[in-house]
């Protein structure tokens, strides 16, 4: 175990995989000497050189397309899109090419690529640099989607993503980059398989399903609720696609109450998917309170910090939702 930041865990995972496998390489805007807009790859250019850590022009379409083409022919590229909002420019390559190549070619292609990108608000970067777009990617068969909430998860999931033979969209969060935690870097091949949820806190009264930076908030809310005698279980799916439905269903069957917390704009967010997963499952019969979701407001992210903070679910709102659920049950 080693204490490191989320950013360092990502760098470590990439570096280890690049040391292990000659065909893993990394490209993106300003990822070389500069070390990336968020400093994630600082030092990697020195270690791996210009062949394996490549600066690209500001050309998000070809970054993704080239990654797909390279992956289909034998490399295992990791690409970085500087802000997840810029994925709007890479969508054709990702959705119409990378995600579909295998299926539409009759299973005769494989596209092992990882698209790393930071999402989320909270840095005062406003509407075009703060979106949470994971729901889009989850809606595209052929793509896997990963949303780590801790340094250890980021580390183990990124290593698994790099070894996965499919296009993986790996969504990081700007506000998590500097958070730190224990990471089992010394453990031989610490891999967290994609599709396995993590119960971040066990509880019996209410289930909260959440991911990314909202996990921390949910845990804080759970702590406050605990003081009030309410036992909250916090389930972090960690990968949204594939989704570990079993763990979520089991938790809801135990608690009978479900709250989904996501940072993304509510309408069309992945919260709806998680809720539908429950209401169409056997867990439906265990529900004894209306399912609640706490999501980002349906608004572009504003610049002013007070407004910006008001967009996403707050700890006290989560606490209120917990109390509402329990009082109903």
């Amino acid at each position, binding site marked *: 175990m080693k204490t490191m930041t989320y950013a360092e865990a990502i760098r470590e995972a990439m570096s280890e995989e690049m040391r292990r496998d000659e*065909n893993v*390489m990394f490209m993106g805007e300003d990822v070389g000497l500069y070390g990336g807009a968020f400093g994630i790859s600082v030092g990697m250019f020195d270690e791996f050189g210009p*062949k394996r850590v*490549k600066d*690209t*022009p500001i*050309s998000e*379409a*070809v970054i*993704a*397309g*080239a*990654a*797909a*083409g*390279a*992956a*289909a*022919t*034998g*490399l295992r*590229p990791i690409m970085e899109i500087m802000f997840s909002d810029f994925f709007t420019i890479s969508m*054709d*390559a990702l959705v*119409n*090419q990378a995600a579909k*190549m*295998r*299926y*539409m*070619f*009759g*299973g*005769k*292609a*494989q*596209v*092992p690529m990882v698209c790393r990108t930071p999402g989320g608000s909270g840095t005062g970067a406003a509407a075009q640099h703060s979106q949470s777009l994971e729901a889009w990617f989850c809606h595209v*068969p*052929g793509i*896997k989607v990963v949303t780590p909430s801790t340094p250890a998860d980021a580390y183990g999931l990124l290593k698994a993503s790099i070894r996965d*033979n*499919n296009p993986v969209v790996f969504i990081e969060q700007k506000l998590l980059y500097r958070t730190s935690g224990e990471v089992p870097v010394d453990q031989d091949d610490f891999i967290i398989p994609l599709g396995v949820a993590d119960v971040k806190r066990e509880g019996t009264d209410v289930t909260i399903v959440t991911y990314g930076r909202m996990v921390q908030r949910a845990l804080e809310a759970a702590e406050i609720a605990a003081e009030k005698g309410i036992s909250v279980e916090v389930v972090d799916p960690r990968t949204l696609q594939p989704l570990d439905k079993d763990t979520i269903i089991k938790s809801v069957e135990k608690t009978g109450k479900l709250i989904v917390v996501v940072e993304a704009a509510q309408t069309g967010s992945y919260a709806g998917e998680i809720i539908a997963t429950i209401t169409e499952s056997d867990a439906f019969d265990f529900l004894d309170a209306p399912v609640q979701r706490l999501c980002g407001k349906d608004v572009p992210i504003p610049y002013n910090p007070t407004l910006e903070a008001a967009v996403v679910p707050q700890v006290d709102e989560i606490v209120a939702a917990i109390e509402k659920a329990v009082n109903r049950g």
Partner: protein
Amino acid sequence: MSIERETLLEMYLRMNQARAFEEKVKWGFARGMIHGTTHLSIGQEASGVASCMALDQGDKASLSHRGHSAAIGFGVDLNKMMSELLGRANGYCKGKGGSMHIADIENGNLGANGIVGGGFSISVGAALTQQYQETGNVVLCFAGDGATNEGNFHESLNLASIWKLPVIFYIENNLYAMSNPLEKHMNITDIADRAASYGMPGVICDGNDVFDVYQTIQEAAKHCREGKGPVLVESKTYRWDGHSKSDAQAYRTMEERQEWMAKDPILRLRNHIIEEGIKTLEEVDAIDAKAKQDIEEAFEFAWNSPEPDVSTLMEDVYA
């Protein structure tokens, strides 16, 4: 430039197969035996076949939506290709791709593409692999004149040029992007001029002349293999049929079409072969007949092949 005798005759055969393939596809469509849509390259066979045959073993090609001639030029199992158009289980894509997605990655065919310009960046990536793994191979990237107006063209050529990737951007300029004539979709006449934006060579070849096509691609490939980076090649040609299966072609004149049909690339090569005494008239007729026969057999094979079982629907989404 001269092309080796064997190669030339194989080229002639493949061009005839391509023509016969597409005539058969037209026939199948008209009878409802083939569904969906398809884009015929009749008239563009020299451009599609000679370019691919100029490649070396191990080289890759990324095809456009109008990719039948190129696929056949690159080397293909006609049975599997026809089966794919008929949506059969033993088609190249197990019936899941169809005309717009014929691919054979293992053998270097990176796939036709239903997204206009989608192949540019895929090719850049494939070329990156060649450079990274020092294979010495090149990637031949097909696209149409209209495709060069996509942003993906620009980003791809720029990146390939900076990274000196071994990729030939091969633009089949058939003067139209669907119904849109070249002069209405760009303000220049020669697409090769666009190379200037990327500091790479831009050359033009007569897309209806196998010799010019072949030589141009060989030279471009040499440039790539020498580590000098990508080349933009414009191949001037013409499609005889409509854009896709339903197209009244109100946007062009009968005269223009006839002018170009008079430049039939197959007839041109046929005449050459006979005039140069490479083969007699009868021998050439025999090649023509074989090509047709091959396609008839491919259709027969495909028609009698099984459809994919519905149980395969969910297979191959993920690796």
